[in-house]
């Protein structure tokens, strides 16, 4: 049943399926709560936190009065990017970027405070066989923006996923 409610909200159900889901959805208190909770979750993920998790008293009455809209199924991943960014939240604070020292011309700037490797290459973190965190939303729409991988690569964020354990590493490894 929760699958039906989810599909209904995603606009995947049409015609009789949708009708069935709508009547089922409003059929009992448990399902009403599920329906409302899913919307609340969706809103929270879009950054519009609901004022309360309790169902407003009149919401189903208003819903009943709404005309049925028969729209083609659509799966617009409008919130996917935002969600992907949110997924990166816990690791986004840390980043590593090189020191640009005296590049760019215009006289001799003050020597960088850290004298070691002022314009050195960036230490790699992303690894070959690593599996990045599973997508937050299981959206099948074609090219989903996977911001997380690029964010991790840009800020050189250390994550266990990108640090391959030595046991998974094929040839030579140094274990201590």
């Amino acid at each position: 049943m929760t699958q039906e409610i989810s599909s209904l909200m995603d606009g995947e159900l049409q015609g009789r399926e949708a009708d069935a889901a709508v009547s089922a959805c409003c059929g009992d208190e448990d399902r009403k709560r599920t329906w409302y909770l899913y919307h609340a979750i969706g809103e929270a993920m879009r950054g519009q936190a609901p004022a309360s998790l309790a169902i407003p008293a009149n919401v189903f009455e208003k819903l009943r009065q709404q005309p049925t809209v028969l729209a083609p199924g659509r799966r617009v991943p409008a919130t996917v990017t935002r969600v992907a960014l949110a997924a990166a939240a816990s690791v986004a604070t840390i980043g590593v970027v090189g020191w640009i020292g005296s590049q760019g011309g215009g006289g001799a700037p003050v020597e960088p405070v850290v004298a070691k490797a002022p314009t050195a290459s960036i230490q790699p973190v992303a690894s070959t066989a690593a599996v990045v965190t599973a997508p937050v939303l299981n959206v099948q729409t074609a090219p989903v923006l996977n911001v997380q991988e690029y964010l991790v690569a840009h800020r050189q964020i250390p994550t266990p996923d990108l640090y391959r354990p030595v046991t998974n590493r094929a040839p030579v490894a140094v274990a201590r």
Partner: protein
Amino acid sequence: MLAGGRRWLPAIALGVACGAQAGPPADALGWLQRATEAARNASYAGTFVHSNGERTSTIRVTHVSVNGDEHERIEALDGPPYEIVRRNEEMFCYFPDAKTVRLDRRVNARFFPSLFRAPADVIARSYDVKLGTVEHVLGYDCRWIQLAPHDASRFSERLCSEVGSGLVVRAKTLNLQGQVIEQYTFTDLKLGPQVARGDVKSIFEARVKQWITDSQPREEAKGVDTGWTVTGLPPGFAKVTELRRTLPGRPQPVSQLIYSDGLASLSVFVEPNGAPKRTSEASSEDGTTTFFVRPMGDQLVTVLGEVPLPTAQQVGRSVAHRP
């Protein structure tokens, strides 16, 4: 004047370090330079909250400087636990959930309160640096340093620099409309002799014996010539490095070019436009993080950085083969 050109004090003994005792600098650039140096040379311990757009995280940082060596411990207080213990450029990254510790070499980590990647005079090429008011923050007097960008291709920055040591205790990034979109702020802070060398020891170190240790240095992303360049780079941005990086799920390495103006940075990624093939441009913004992706023939260009969207678009649309 005197303090503006002064170098940091290398001889600090017995785990007790403090900022320069020579009094606050005379001008804004001196303040900015001192703030940059204080993040490396001062001893401090505290918890800070980082909010960027809709995201918030809490981090504990402990930093001491002993005989010129930096020792630092970073611990995430939100989300999956991790800890980084750093001695100068050596980083031990502990991931207790994965029972993994990783030895890595840092080039330059942007750990708050260390936000700058260039000396003050390089930053002054892209920003007007001015001094603001003195405020009482967390029991310390701190002076605001304002960085107003010379053009619309970057955000403006405000830093609250502790008067005694120069350490940045609060930092705000503002968009072109003057709204705060990213913020770092200490919620508690100890400075100077209150911080001991032992405070930067790993809390996981004792448990690590059964963990997987990976100390293999990574060779895959040494600086290389990727063959790509950006022709429409905004003024003030300079290339930090370029490399080939192996990203998960991709058969071929991805080229990455990193640019910075000393404060803001952006990465340009170029890779084959694979399956599923992207056919249109797309972008997203959250806080200071801007993401822009654009198909370019058989290639896919992705720009990610702490810059306004038009900057990311300008950069992304001017990627070309190096002549």
